């Protein structure tokens, strides 16, 4: 996360760290069910084998030396439909729900977050010198309608319907490398709802280059049916 701030410990209890089997963090993810994590498909390019990865839950630092840590191997990797940058990870055993590990809510099918809604991203990714390395950071910014985001001076038509943009027009804060797969959540009716999965951007935190996120509401049916079928 570039800009933003260091989060309060365990205040985003659905955030997971996706790691190599040797324990190196490389992507984020979001707990949506005790045994299922949503992440970005591009985070799984290095291997198709579940054994190549593991998931850490209940941690605040990248070192992950907290007593609340839960360590899970993966049973399945399931990539999203039509090449979309979203994937589901099935944990070998369900995570234990407590005050430090809790799933996020999923949105209604096809819900579009209104333009200007303030949402939040979290992760242990690149900070570009803005501080907080190694500790879960957060930042907030408004959702930008695809019509604006696809203007020539922004992302010039690159954003698809199943993606969404969010960021500050003047830059300075954004998600970045290592945050991929992690959550973009928006607060609504006293709960946080997973609206985006960190996907791509043109650099990080550049003016008029907001971050792009997989639009979760377009994949709710896929998530439900995949979990039920597996």
């Amino acid at each position, binding site marked *: 996360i570039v800009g933003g701030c260091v989060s309060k410990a365990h205040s985003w209890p659905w955030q997971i760290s996706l790691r190599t089997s040797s324990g190196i963090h490389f992507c984020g993810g979001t707990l949506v069910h005790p045994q299922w994590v949503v992440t970005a498909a591009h985070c799984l390019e290095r291997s198709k084998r579940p054994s190549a990865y593991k998931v850490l839950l209940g941690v605040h630092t990248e070192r992950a030396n907290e007593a609340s840590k839960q360590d899970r191997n993966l049973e399945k990797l399931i990539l999203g439909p039509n090449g979309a940058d979203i994937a589901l990870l099935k944990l070998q055993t369900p995570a234990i729900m407590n005050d430090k590990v809790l799933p*996020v809510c999923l949105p209604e099918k096809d819900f*579009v977050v209104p*333009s200007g809604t303030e949402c939040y991203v979290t992760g242990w990714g690149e900070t570009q010198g803005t501080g907080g390395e190694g500790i879960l950071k957060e930042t907030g910014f408004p959702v930008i309608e695809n019509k604006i985001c696809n203007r020539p001076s922004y992302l010039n038509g690159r954003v698809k319907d199943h993606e969404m943009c969010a960021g500050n*027009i003047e830059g300075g804060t954004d998600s970045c490398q290592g945050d991929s797969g992690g959550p973009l959540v928006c607060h609504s009716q006293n709960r946080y709802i997973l609206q985006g999965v960190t996907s791509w951007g043109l650099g990080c935190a550049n003016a008029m280059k907001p971050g792009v996120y997989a639009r979760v509401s377009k994949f709710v049916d896929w998530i439900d049916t995949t979990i039920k079928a597996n």
Partner: protein
Amino acid sequence: SGNETDSYTKTEGAWILSLQKTQYSVNTVAECAAKCDAETIWTCRSFLYIEKDQDCWTAAANSKTEMILRRSSAALYEKKVYLQECVNGIGTDYRGTKSKSKTGKICQRWDAKYPHRPNFTPSEHPRADLESNFCRNPDADSGGPWCYTTDSNTRWENCDVPSCTEECIHCSGENYRGKISTTENAYTCQRWDSQKPHNHGYNPSALPEKYLEENYCRNPDGDPKPWCFTTSPSKRWDFCSIPRCTSEPPTIVPELSCATGEGELYRGTISVTESGKQCQSWSVQTPWKHNRSPDNYPCKGLDSNYCRNPDNERMPWCYTTNTETRWEYCKVPSCGDAAGPDEPVIPVEEEDCYEGDGTSYRGVTTESISGKRCQRWSAMTPHSHKKTPQAFPQADLRRNLCRNPDGDRAPWCYTTDPSVRWEYCNLEKCVNKPSGGATPTQSSNPLVPTPDSAQKDCKTGKGDTYRGVTSITVLGVTCQAWRAQSPQQHNSFTPQTHPTKGLEGNSCRNPDGDVNGPWCYTTDRNKKWDYCQIPDCAGMSCGTPVTKPKRCFGR
């Protein structure tokens, strides 16, 4: 029937002071509207209705002439005809405030005898609202509203008031409220409240200030002119071709040496960015190609290369002549506020809850209790007000953050919904915070997420569906049974009038969707009704962290 208030504009949470005002006790809002319509001694332009108290005040003033105040549970209804600044037909019903004739002459007051002795006077035509020196049409002149002028050589002249049905735009059409629904390439517009064929983020209920009605062309996002999503699956959106108005654009009072709020009125000559780069002239396309041209934004003062804010940015800016930097903000002094209240928020460690009455709350919540987005404190639309950062420098009125600048009982904000002036914020009081401000240590007790806690004595959101058993108000007074008529007499909310609202016994309920949560009539003769303190069910299900996030926002 609900039709009685159709000719009124409603604003919740609003109150107006008026020298001419009459109080009535009524049973319904329709009865209150009827009282206003029946006023004969003076012209009733608005009324105030307090549903829980069944209290009705008719008033001669409206929001065009008087400051609106905040008042919990009150709603201001204003007659639309007295708010319109345009004419229907020849304008005999025009009650606007234009006071210049079509050649720019200042109108003579209708009650004045000089320089012209009038044939039409307020006393002889009491129903014509010949007030002040506003243009009127008491004699059904075919040229529309007119006035006697202050020019002794011109007795009277028509006023050239724009037509309400004229389909045209001023500026970039940000305020266009017309009914054109076909684009310049002949596509039919998609309804704004529909997500088919195009899924989109311009939801009318989430963006009430944008007036996204039916499938009419609108400009909610600072484009050069109104547009709409189209009903063609292959064309997501298209501009609409709406002619420019021939009447005068809205007048502004330019700010020449400093900027208020977001600086949209700044018309000064600073032409250097905050990092010292020279600005590019708005009318040229090098080194940066753009559409913020004087032609596209004719009312934004895009002269020369001066810093401006034509598109709802945070402050005045410009494209730069530096080929590495497309645009940058300018450092325009803020009028009367050296501290710069709208600087980016610096994240700080805070609990997102408030102590006492919340005067000291400095958290980051920007949402009202019913989920409405807060209006920026420095903005005057959709609600004009006096709670500005300049007027309350100690209150930290940054951005659109919930605050309590005036010693109310909790943090609040003006909302971006034109029909709801203000609301308390979606915040709870801090409880049992240990000294030293440390976050309480949480045990890792298993917590099984449950879908909702409808059966528990807690509420979700506003508590509309609360069916718990709490029957004591915040001040410790016992609630009166909903079916009882003593000590409080009432007929707005009974088990008969609201059979689905759970008005059983004397338990607190929220039958009217009050944004501050469940309430009840009280057994205290001196307090007709009051709120109840019902804990929130948050923390029991998905997306509700036990440790509340900081929600730091911005750079």
